[in-house]
């Protein structure tokens, strides 16, 4: 039996509220299917399944807030279906409380505050409630220490009977409950950035890169294309980063009691939200994607990010982050590393500058690329090698 757990959707996540199950027990799922919506401090996120199988049972109800690692559902693997009879008794649905990986994030002993309270209910009352499909979270216990007793469940059954023809909650109200609030995003950013500043000794490097060739190349391509198919500079920059990281793999890593290199390159791309705050969805396996494919991914992800409709894996799996200020903004940006990553790359706006090349002065569009690195994980040399490699591949965009 596969235990489908509350995923860790980022270093700052301690718990999540299951807002809605998108499937029901008995449904067959495959890798990548959306199984539920979870509200985290980052917003409402679609949670994906990573296994194939049949949903056996949901372990938590809609509306439950549980810590990262809590078993949400049990999934019967497809190939196991036939050997169902010899179920391992040890792997029964137990209330395993896995502690959040980052539980010291806010510098507090998070155990008491994040572990959801187990429902106190007598075995008999639980049995009756299960038979009658009564939602225990709506029952107030009157037994010892507030435990739910048989009588409490029986009167709940009475109430349900009386109100069966009324809908449980008006639709608008449910929608309202789903809408994440700006403050929660703000406090998530605050927590992650405080941790970054507190724990990560940053070093900073910058390099001015001539963007003439890149812009020319892009202009030539875009001229041939309808507006919807045109490339943005961001796609090219992401591709160039992915390419350069292959030469300096130690920057594509996390620091969790030691440097852990990642075998895949997922580039987190900072997106500013209209209402304030940022989200960092990942362009997955950017090294394996072409520039066009990256552009497609951006076209898909940016509107969804702004609508806060991202999938769990898109938010949680980036291995490095890039922040780009876009046109007309500040010249340079030195980022704060998003823990547990070990580097962040920043791009200022492209500015025309006097630029010496091959012994000649000229006006060139120049971008300032910066790198903030975790000095526990890597040294300035790595960062320098990376920026140089980045500059080099942006001179030959056609080879990317």
């Amino acid at each position: 039996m596969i235990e489908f757990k509350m995923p860790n959707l980022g270093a700052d996540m301690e718990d999540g509220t299951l807002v809605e199950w998108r499937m029901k027990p008995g449904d067959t799922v495959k890798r990548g299917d959306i199984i539920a919506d979870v509200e985290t401090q980052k917003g409402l996120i679609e949670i994906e399944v990573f296994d194939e199988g049949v949903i056996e049972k949901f372990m938590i109800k809609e509306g439950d807030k549980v810590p990262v690692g809590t078993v949400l559902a049990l999934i019967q693997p497809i190939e196991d279906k036939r050997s169902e009879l010899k179920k391992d008794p040890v792997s029964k649905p137990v209330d395993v409380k896995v502690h959040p990986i980052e539980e010291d994030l806010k510098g507090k002993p998070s155990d008491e505050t994040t572990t959801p309270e187990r429902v106190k209910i007598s075995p008999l009352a639980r049995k009756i409630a299960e038979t009658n499909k009564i939602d225990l979270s709506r029952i107030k216990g009157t037994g010892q220490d507030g435990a739910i007793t048989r009588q409490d469940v029986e009167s709940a059954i009475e109430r349900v009977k009386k109100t069966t023809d009324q809908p449980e909650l008006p639709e608008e109200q449910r929608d309202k409950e789903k809408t994440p609030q700006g403050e929660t995003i703000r406090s998530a950013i605050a927590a992650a950035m405080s941790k970054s500043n507190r724990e990560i000794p940053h070093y900073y490097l910058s390099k001015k890169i001539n963007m003439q060739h890149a812009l020319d190349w892009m202009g030539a391509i875009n001229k041939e294309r309808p507006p919807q198919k045109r490339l943005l500079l961001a796609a090219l920059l992401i591709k160039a980063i992915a390419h350069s990281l292959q030469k300096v793999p130690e920057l594509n890593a996390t620091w969790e009691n030691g440097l852990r290199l990642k075998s895949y390159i997922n580039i987190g791309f900072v997106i500013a939200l209209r209402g304030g705050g940022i989200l960092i969805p990942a362009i997955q396996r950017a090294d394996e994607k072409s520039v066009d494919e990256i552009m497609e991914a951006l076209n898909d992800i940016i509107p969804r990010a702004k609508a806060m409709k991202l999938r769990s894996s898109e938010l949680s799996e980036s291995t490095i982050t890039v922040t780009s200020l876009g046109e007309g903004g500040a010249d340079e940006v030195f980022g704060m590393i998003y823990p547990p990553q070990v580097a962040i790359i920043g791009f200022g706006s492209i500015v025309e500058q006097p630029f010496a090349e091959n012994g000649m002065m000229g006006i060139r569009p120049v971008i300032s690329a910066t790198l903030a690195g975790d000095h526990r994980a890597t040294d300035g040399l790595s960062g320098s090698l990376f920026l140089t490699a980045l500059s080099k591949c942006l001179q030959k965009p056609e080879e990317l």
Partner: protein
Amino acid sequence: MGNTVKFTYREALKQGIREALINDDTVFLMGEDVGRYGGAFAVSKGLFKEFGEERIMDVPLSESGFVGAGIGAALAGMKPIVEVMTVNFSMLAMDQIVNNAATLNHMSGGQLNVPVVIRMGCGIGRQLAAQHSHSWEPLYAHIPGLIVLSAGTHEDAKGMLLSALLNPDPVIIFEYTYMLNMEREIPADSGKVDINKAKIVREGQDISIITYGLGVYKCIEAANKLAEEGIDVEVIDLRVLRPLDEDTFLNSVRKTHRALIVEDAWRSVSISSEVSARIMEKAFFELDAPVERLCGIEVPIPYPLHLEEACVPSVVDIMNTTKKMTGL
């Protein structure tokens, strides 16, 4: 109800012994001061005169010796009633009881039976202090090969002995010193009793109080008072501490969904521990509240009256815990 007679617990015990002696020539009573003196608690007073020294036998002050002799007599075909003045002294006879009486049927491949009945005074008396006041039913209930009975009512004080003598295996009967002067009405024709089953001594719907020995009358009293407050208590007298009749108390818990276990014995590794465990094992999903226990405080029973009383569950304790558990 037919004819009843009013007896003290002491008189009920004596009637049982007397009837057994009359019924069967192979029955005899042996113990410290049971004959000429009439028994340390006057239970056998008058029997020496009636039955003579061969059947009411005074023995030397050696528990190991005379309990062993009783076991020997049982092996030889007699039906001895061995009185050990208090359970506290029976520790000296532990080897005879545990290693001989309880095992010989097994060791002989079923060829030998030990139909001995050992009566022991048990529990607090009235200020008899630590070495005469303990409740050691759990020690004996632990041992396979013994049948362990607890006479918590006058009917059982009389009848358990009669039934025990018909059993081919060693039987321990706990009698309660504290109750000797207590008077109760019992049916005039009461005699042998079932020594396999626990007994519902008061029926109720709200909670099962499971008890034995000195707890029985205390729980019935508490139940009667609680009835005035609208709490309907079922009281179960376990009676047979080994082998436990779990069906009776499990069925009761399945009806009331709450269980309180009351005993004077120390809490740890006690009869209540065992009963509680079996409820968890076999009736967990019937429970509407955690099983609770009221047991003896785990100290040697003190001499001063108020401390002695404080060491065992009282009627008020039982009422309070029941109210808490039923939330009524």
